[in-house]
């Protein structure tokens, strides 16, 4: 069980991004953080993954957990191909399967710069889905994808998230519903 206990976080002392935030995420939970832009959803994800430390309060239950994530930005290594980007955090066979599941079999050898925005997003998602983890974190992972691609990605996420904790941020309530995620508003 992951617990946020009265967590406060700020970059500048007078303007906390997250204030007295408490949350419980049981193992295997599917959770969607929602709310207007700038309310600290991404910051909560960063705190969860250990990229930021709470200024006040504490987060427990994350020790020893393996994370996998899609960030707001694609964060693909520019000099590596789509396949290499995914395989770097899994293995060749799993990476190929993850890319194929997202309809990317024909761009395995392409560099990120050669891909469209939607393709890059799907490579980033494939990387997260192929990586063995306990907690899957998706920050607006389906942004910029058309309906057909989104459906395909949702199916792949459902499959990959089985038995894992899933925490996502999305503005599409239908996506959260399709993944069976409970919603927490910030």
């Amino acid at each position, binding site marked *: 069980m992951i617990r946020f206990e009265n967590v406060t976080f700020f970059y500048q002392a007078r303007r906390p991004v997250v204030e007295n935030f408490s949350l419980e995420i049981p193992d295997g939970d599917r959770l969607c953080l929602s709310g207007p832009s700038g309310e600290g959803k991404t910051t909560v994800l960063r705190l969860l*993954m250990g*990229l930021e430390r709470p200024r006040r309060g504490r987060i427990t239950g994350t020790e020893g957990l*393996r994370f996998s*994530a899609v*960030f707001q930005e694609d*964060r693909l*290594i520019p*000099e590596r191909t789509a396949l290499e980007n995914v395989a770097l955090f899994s293995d060749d066979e799993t990476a190929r399967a993850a890319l194929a599941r997202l309809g990317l079999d024909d761009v395995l050898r392409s*560099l990120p710069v050669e891909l469209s925005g939607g393709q890059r997003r799907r490579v980033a998602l494939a990387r997260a889905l192929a990586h063995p983890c306990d907690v899957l974190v998706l920050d607006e992972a389906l942004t910029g994808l058309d309906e057909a691609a989104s459906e395909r990605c949702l199916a792949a996420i459902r499959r990959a998230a089985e038995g894992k904790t899933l925490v996502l941020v999305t503005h599409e309530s239908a996506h959260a519903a399709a993944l069976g995620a409970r919603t927490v508003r910030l």
Partner: protein
Amino acid sequence: MARKRWHTAAAVVFWLLLWQAGAMLANQRLLIPIPTPADTAAALARLGGTGRFWLTAGASAARIGAGFLLAVLLGTACAAASERWGWFGTVSEPLVRLMRTVPVAVVTILVFLWLPRGRIPGFIAFLTVFPIVWSNVAQGIRHADQGLVEMAAVFGMGRREILRQITLPGIRPYFTAAVATGLGFAWKSGVAAEIICRTELSLGSMLWSSKSAVAYDEVFALTAVIVIASAALETVARRLLKGGRRDPV
């Protein structure tokens, strides 16, 4: 690509013809003839046929190469140190700026007082290349994509592996540019130092002797050797450091 090569070859031929025509015209009026491309090629062939020329060229290359290698190693280490510890960068910056701005001839004359002649060209090559490597590698480290480093850390990659897989490949283009540019500069400044301090068994000294003997065809031939070697070294360095990676289409 092939088209570009043809254009470059055509441009080279154009300048060779212009040189030939200019030399022929000038030689009708001047007492000391200007060597034509053919004279230069003949002198080059003559020099290339002697063992002493190759020994001299090798000695120059070794001397300058040592200074260059030391500059690459120390420049890279100092760039990493200055990005790791801010105070190190602040303290070193005035010295690096000085190294960049003082002309080669001035430094050569200065170090002439303290270093044996044989060491000066290598030292000058070091002084020329060191600030180039330092500033380029430091820039590469500064521009390393922190987003990628964060991503790799979240995916459980260790610090050493992040350095190998993410940080170093990001710095690589800056390092390659520094090495390729530095090689050309090292060669040119090193030979200039050899000329100024007449280092024994050196291309610079050979150039000076040819000039003293009014053997201008040899002066031109040696200049051609220096220019060709500089361009070739730069190309080889770029190819080696690129090492099979392909550019985006």
